[in-house]
């Protein structure tokens, strides 16, 4: 009996001391934000009382749920969500309402079934929305190179991946995490990393065409927390990223599939963010 009382007291004291943290996924239930939110909910559970909120819809997450949560919140947000929101979709979010602790830049890679996207016209798979940033990228590619590519919109990266694997499209615009899987499924498909990294990805700078943003920026924001708690959460996140055995370390293949910055100043964050959002609008 005495032992039970001690264990009970310990459990009570632990739960009383640990800070609460709500992780709010602003993305879909099957995408990368969801996976990372789930990973953090597991990795940070030793230090915080975690509540994972995963509505699978950014309109619900930010429009409905975020205003109702009083305590500290960790939430991802993407530049394309913001760009679409500012163009009239359901929600926008001012990232200065919280503290950006992680800033990711994700170039988009071009996977091809053999053609050269700057010469050979074809169908190009991209992710939602139909009139979003990636659709405009294809339009600008046509303007830039004189091609006649047709954009074909898919609900998610998984569907776009399948479309190039089964030959429904000639090209697909995908993030780094998906490219390895595509090549594994069909070795004749070429996802030229160098093309994205130094070719098309640097197109705005090299061509002077500032309408093309060939990538996405994403941020992880901590809301409703003082600076001490924000730093504690940030440190815990960083430690887990460096730990290949952690959930986020496993998901990110030991941090190799992410391009995260943890040390940007508020000014740098705002400058990068606003530039990316503006080019995606």
């Amino acid at each position, binding site marked *: 009996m005495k032992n039970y009382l001690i264990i009970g007291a310990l459990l009570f004291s632990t739960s009383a001391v640990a800070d609460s943290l709500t992780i709010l996924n602003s993305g879909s239930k099957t995408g990368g934000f969801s996976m990372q939110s789930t990973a953090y909910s597991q990795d940070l559970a030793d230090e915080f009382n975690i509540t994972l909120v995963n509505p699978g819809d950014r309109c619900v997450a930010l429009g409905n749920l975020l205003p*109702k949560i009083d305590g500290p919140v960790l939430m991802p947000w993407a530049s394309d969500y913001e760009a679409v929101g500012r163009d009239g979709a359901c929600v926008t979010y001012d990232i200065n309402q919280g503290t950006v602790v992680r800033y990711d830049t994700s170039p988009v890679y071009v996977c091809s079934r053999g053609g050269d996207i700057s010469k050979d016209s074809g169908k190009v798979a991209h992710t939602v929305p*139909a009139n979003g940033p990636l659709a405009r990228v294809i339009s600008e590619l046509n303007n830039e190179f004189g091609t006649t590519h047709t954009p074909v919109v898919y609900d998610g990266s*998984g569907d776009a991946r399948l479309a190039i694997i089964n030959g429904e499209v000639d090209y697909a615009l995908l993030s780094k995490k998906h490219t390895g899987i595509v090549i594994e499924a069909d070795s004749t498909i070429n996802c030229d990393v160098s093309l994205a990294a130094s070719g098309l990805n640097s197109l705005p700078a090299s061509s002077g065409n500032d309408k093309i943003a060939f990538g996405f920026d994403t941020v992880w924001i901590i809301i409703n927390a003082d600076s001490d708690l924000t730093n504690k959460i940030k440190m815990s996140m960083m430690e887990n990223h460096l730990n290949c055995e952690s959930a986020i370390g496993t998901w990110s293949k030991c941090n190799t599939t992410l391009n995260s910055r943890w040390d940007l100043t508020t000014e740098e964050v705002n400058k990068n963010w606003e530039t990316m959002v503006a080019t995606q609008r």
Partner: protein
Amino acid sequence: MEPYLLGIGMGLVSGLIPGVGNFVLLLLAWPFLYNFSVMELLIIYVSMASISQFIGSIPAIVFGIPGESSSFPAVQESKRLNTIEEVSKSISGSAFGSAFGGIVVAGLCFYFVQYLDLIKHFYSTKLLVGLLLTVCFVMVLTIDNKWWVNILLIISGLLLGSIGYNSYLNTEFLTFGINSLWSGLPLTVVLICLFAIPQILNNINVPIKRLGNCFEIGKAYILNPIYLFFSTVIGFFGGLVPGLTTVFSSISAYNVSLLFTNNPVKRIVVSETANNAGAFSMLLPLLLFGIPIIGSEAILLFLMEQKGFSIVSWDFTSSFRELSISLIYVNIVGLFIAWPLSKCVTMFYKINLNMLMYIILVSLFFITLYTGHLNYNMGYYLICFTLLAPIGAFLRNVNTLPLVFTFIVHDKLIDGVYRLSQILGV
């Protein structure tokens, strides 16, 4: 705990309680799942998905409530079961059909594993749109309403489903600036109000004819294997449809059965056979291409990745063969859980059925509140229930399956037609 037992237990809960599906259960069971290996996680998932299909048919056939979303056809046909013998036959036939579907799919996958990569050709926009339109067309002709009523129901389902923000087309429809409406009408509430409630109200005061020949009760009823095989094939391909999986399997097979038979028992068995076949095939895109096609698979994928799963290094052939064998085992267990329940039909009907229906109606209200709570939006769910339930009551003499089906598939259909226009350049 043995992965089989955990999966079977979860499948029982998922199959019996409407609104509590595999996605919610996986989240609830999260702390227990982290200790399992990749193969054990797959076994848990397959067991849960298969057993929920076995069990989901029981409340659908006996009480007219869909324990699983894929049990709509069984709910629909249950009101045409006039005798205890028919109810008993439906349960045992569904149990055997489900086992047949599951085992045949597992067996074929086991022997043709090296050709499974060919399913990538199934993911064609033309094929997907063609299938969805065909099912809608068949529904217009075969569902037991007037044809123009079926068309109205299909249009209503599409309109109701379109309410909210369409992230594909980046457009909104009838949101009136209300935040909650951006996410559309909640699926659970629509299913309860516009499908379950009309069915239940239609079943109240309908007497079941008591048969004297009790020897028939619980006797194995096995449908013609040719029918079962075709149902299995339809179910297999239906399970591959993203976001719809077993629902598409059962409704497609059911629609085909409407063309060939008027027997409610056969129709139920055919649709239940198909959804069990789909419960396994829906895993193929995940295991072959690393693509989750429903929410619960996304959680499974995440858990598997925590245990080192990588599609690049995954030994699909040997792992899949092991999984196929597991599925055969699970289906045999499912059969021995579900079949004996066909002997208990007389016990079910000793209960005051009218009283039970009212209890179920009240339970559905609380399930609405519970799922609203799970989705952090109880008030909105309550408002939707209040508005839609009277419409459901008004439609009690109408077969609302076309409305529910198009509500579920509206985004696949609308987005698919749009994408098809892009591909064809029109």
